[in-house]
C-alpha cells in the first residue's frame, strides 16, 4: 500500500523540485517502509514501570533517562565536576562487585538456609510418615482379624470329618464282622467236606486192603504165574 503512496508522492514531487528522486525503481515491495513492527516487550514489568512501558513502549524508559540526563547537564542543573568522577567510579565498582560477588554469596546463604530447612522438614516429614505407617499397619491388622472365620470353618470341617470317619468306620466294622462270620461258615463247610472226603477215602482204602488181606500170597503167586504165561507168550 505504501509503495503506491510513494509512487503518488513521486508524481507530486515536481512541486518541491526533486523530480527524479522518488521514481519507483521496482514494482516489488520496498525494503524500508514506515510500517516497521513495534518491538514486543517480554520483560513483564509491573507497577509503575509497567505503566510506563504500556504508555511509552520498550524504549520509553531509556528515552526518559537519556533525555533527563541531557536536560540536567545541558541546562547545568547538574554540574560535572570532580565529584562526578568519584560517583561514576564508585558506582561502577559497586555495580561490578554486585554483579560478580552477588550470585556466589546468594548461593551460599541459600544452601545454608536449605540445609536448616531440610533438617526441620526432614524430622517433620519423618513424624508424619511414622503416623501414616502406623495407621496403615493398624488397618492391616484389623483386616487380619477376618481370618477367624476361616479358622473356625476349618475347625468345624475337622470335626465333621472326624464324625464322618467314625460313621464310615462303624459301617466298615459291621460289614467286616458279617463277612467274617459268613466266611467262617464257608470255611467250616470246606473243612468238614475235606475231612469227610479224606475219611471216606481212607475207609475205602482200608476196606479194599482188608478185602484182599488173606489172599495176598495167593494173589501174588497167581500174578507171577500169569506173568510167566504172558512172558512165554
Amino acid at each position, binding site marked *: 500500500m505504501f509503495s503506491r503512496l510513494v509512487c503518488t508522492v513521486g508524481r507530486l514531487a515536481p512541486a518541491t523540485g526533486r523530480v527524479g528522486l522518488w521514481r519507483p525503481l521496482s514494482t516489488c515491495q520496498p525494503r524500508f517502509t514506515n510500517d516497521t513492527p513495534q518491538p514486543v516487550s517480554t520483560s513483564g514489568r509491573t507497577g509503575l514501570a509497567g505503566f510506563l512501558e504500556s504508555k511509552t513502549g520498550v524504549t520509553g524508559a531509556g528515552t526518559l533517562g537519556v533525555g533527563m540526563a541531557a536536560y540536567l547537564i545541558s541546562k547545568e542543573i547538574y554540574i560535572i565536576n570532580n565529584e562526578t568522577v568519584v560517583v561514576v567510579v564508585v558506582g561502577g565498582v559497586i555495580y561490578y562487585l554486585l554483579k560478580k560477588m552477588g550470585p556466589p554469596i546468594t548461593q551460599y546463604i541459600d544452601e545454608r538456609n536449605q540445609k536448616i530447612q531440610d533438617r526441620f522438614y526432614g524430622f517433620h516429614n519423618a513424624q508424619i510418615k511414622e503416623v501414616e505407617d502406623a495407621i496403615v499397619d493398624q488397618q492391616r491388622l484389623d483386616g487380619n482379624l477376618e481370618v477367624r472365620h476361616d479358622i473356625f470353618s476349618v475347625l468345624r470341617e475337622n*470335626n465333621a470329618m472326624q464324625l464322618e470317619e467314625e460313621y464310615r468306620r462303624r459301617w466298615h466294622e459291621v460289614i467286616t464282622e458279617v463277612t467274617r462270620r459268613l466266611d467262617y*461258615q464257608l470255611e467250616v463247610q470246606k473243612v468238614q467236606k475235606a475231612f469227610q472226603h479224606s475219611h471216606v477215602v481212607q475207609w475205602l482204602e482200608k476196606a479194599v486192603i482188608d478185602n484182599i488181606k488173606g489172599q495176598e500170597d495167593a494173589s501174588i503167586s497167581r500174578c507171577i504165574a500169569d506173568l510167566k504165561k504172558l512172558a512165554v507168550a
Partner: protein
Amino acid sequence: MSAGGRKAGQLVVDWARMAGRISEEGRARFSQLRGRYEACKTSLNSYPEKPQPINWDHYRQNIAIPGLVESFQKQYGGLSVPHPKDTTSASIDKREREVEVIVQETLAKSKEKMKEWQEELAALKAQKPFEDMTIQEYLEDKPELKKLGDEMTRKQEWGVLKE
C-alpha cells in the same frame, strides 16, 4: 447339631490367603491346624464313601446251612448304623462366640487408636510452615521440649549442632 456336620469334605480352604493373615507368632499353631486338617482328611479318605455291599448270592449258594444267609441278610437289612454323636460342635460355637467378643473389643480399641492417630496426623499436617513460625509458637504444645530447652539454657549447654 446342624446338618452342616454331615457334609464333610466339601470345604475349599484358601490356605495361602489365610497364611497371609497370620502373624509371626501364630505361624506354628497355624501349621498345626493345617496338619490336623490334612490328617483328618487322609484318614477320612482311607475309608470308602459308601459301605461296600455284601455279595449275598455267593454266600447263599455256597453255605449249606439253610436259612442262615437269609436270616443274616434280614438282620443286616434291618441294621442302621447310628451317626456318631457330635460333642464338639457346641464347644466350637462357644469358642467362636468368645473369640467374636474379643475381636469386637480389639476392633473398638483399634478404632479409637486410629482416631487418635488421624487427629495427630491432621495436627501435624496443619502445622504452619517453619518459615512462618517462631520458636515460641513451635514450643507451645510441647511442654517437655520447652522444659528441656530451659534446662539446657540454665546449664549453659547451647546445643550447637554439628553440620
